[in-house]
């Protein structure tokens, strides 16, 4: 029976279709419906929502903000996460396990709890972060963190850091320590080894970590909702508001679908780039 393998796939396919494809298709369909304050949702096919989302500068700004935040979160996660993974990888036996737990531990705590923690640290003019920065003499007046992009970027970068560390760590594990020794024997100093030997080899790991972090940051909800609040909306919080406050489901659906499409395009493009760049070397 050659069809047996396909038949065995059927239950999983049905489940996948049921929980992913169908709701997704319905959301796409919803984005073409009409909506009015008094008439509610009208199941017609119009482009009104899409014209609004694509034409209105309010939405442009909001999407630009979403991807700006995601970009800086990714940058921050890479700048701190990659060295973190490198140091972790060089640690000795008991410490390595302990610090791995410290770094990955936050994954076990709800994002909401972690973000509320940051809200407490940031909160008001007397927040701990501002107090510490002023105490160190780095700033003279308190910086606004709550309801700013800076605050959202910092909190999100912290929330998503473990994904970057894991991705980079996985690629560090594959490195042959003798390769670093070979560079040293040829006269390379520690910094040269890091820049010319280690970094290029873990670059695919950093890039795949970046893709994950970027996608998660652009679609994150809890952290921008708590730190950014109503004043600083990103795509996901806007879609939420349209669905639950304005009750304009079709417009919310258009925002959500656009975010999904943009993310798929970015992730796919980044993957293509990585694959083409590294095919020869690491295939």
């Amino acid at each position: 029976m050659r069809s047996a393998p396909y038949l065995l796939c059927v239950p999983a396919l049905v489940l996948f279709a049921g929980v992913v494809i169908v709701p997704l298709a319905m959301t796409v369909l919803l984005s073409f419906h009409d909506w009015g304050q008094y008439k509610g949702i009208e199941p017609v096919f119009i482009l009104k929502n899409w014209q609004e989302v694509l034409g209105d500068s309010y939405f442009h700004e909001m999407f630009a903000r979403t991807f700006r935040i995601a970009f800086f979160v990714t940058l921050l996660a890479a700048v701190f996460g990659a060295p973190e993974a490198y140091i972790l990888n060089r640690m000795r036996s008991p410490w390595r396990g302990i610090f791995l737990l410290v770094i990955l531990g936050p994954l076990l705590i709800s994002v909401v709890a972690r973000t509320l923690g940051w809200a407490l640290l940031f909160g008001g003019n007397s927040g701990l972060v501002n107090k510490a920065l002023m105490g160190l003499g780095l700033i003279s007046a308190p910086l606004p963190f709550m309801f700013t992009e800076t605050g959202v970027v910092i909190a999100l970068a912290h929330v998503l850091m473990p994904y970057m560390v894991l991705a980079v760590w996985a690629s560090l594990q594959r490195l042959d320590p003798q390769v670093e020794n070979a560079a040293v024997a040829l006269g390379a100093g520690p910094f040269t080894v890091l820049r010319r030997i280690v970094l290029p080899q873990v670059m695919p790991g950093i890039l795949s970590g970046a893709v994950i972090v970027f996608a998660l940051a652009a679609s994150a909800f809890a952290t921008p909702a708590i730190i950014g609040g109503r004043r600083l909306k990103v795509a996901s919080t806007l879609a939420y508001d349209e669905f639950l406050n304005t009750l304009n489901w079709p417009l919310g659906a258009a925002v959500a679908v656009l975010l999904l499409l943009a993310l798929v395009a970015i992730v796919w493009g980044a993957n293509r780039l990585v694959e083409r760049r590294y095919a020869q070397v690491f295939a």
Partner: protein
Amino acid sequence: MAFLELERLTKSFGAHNAVDGLTLGVEKGEFVALLGPSGCGKTTTLQMIAGFVEPTSGAIRLAGKDLLAIRPARRGLGIVFQSYALFPHMTVAENVGFGLEMQGVAAAERRTRVGETLDLVGLGAFASRFPRQMSGGQQQRVALARALVIRPQILLLDEPLSNLDAKLREGMQIELRQIQRTVGTTTILVTHDQAEAMALSDRIVVMNQGRAEQIGPPHEAYERPATPFVANFLGKTNLVDGNSVRPERISFAAFGLAGTVRTRIFQGNHWLYQVDTASGLVTVIRQNSGEAMPGEGDAVHLAWEGRA
């Protein structure tokens, strides 16, 4: 005073001495092999010379200078690692040129020297390949070129041929010997293959549990092994009435030690016999000259030079 001197070099891991009081002098231009079973401390010795493992005690001197006081990056040694350790993200030319770049050699001269060295190892046409795109033997030669191009004071080779198949290994042995002769670099080769050590080196150091059991030219160690361990490690040997006799030195004769052939194995260019005698089981190796040879169960007499 030798060019490279190891003096009572010792490395302990906890209570275990991986290398135990090794003393060795290597002359300039000499090819020395460190030979011994797995875990006898060969790699540890090499890594101490290279500077990646710190000795517990003892001294290493190169041309009279204390090598241990010099950082690994400044020792100027060429190393071929067992795993080759090529830089996977660099082309062959970039791999080979890396050491020159570190020395601050100008780009133009770098290109010429990289080209010359790649020609030397027969890889002139492969300069723009990546390591992944090459066979094991080719990668091994890239590693050799990378170590040679910096004109190292000493070339350290850690089982460089062990990943190759028998045929390729033989070819590379000949090539390695030729290259070493041409360039004249002092070379230390680590191997657990006694045939390889004997084929390549001027002197061999037979190691056992971190100690040197015998240091000398290959034929001398083979003919006059200092200890039973050396005798056994350098090839098959028979212990007959307290004397050790190499199997290929024993011939079938009309008289001598009487015995019966228990097994006979054909190995292409020679026959391998196991003969039951009054002094125990004796192994005999006879060249395959095309003549008729005794078969299993035949009664034979064994004779060898020096037997009373």
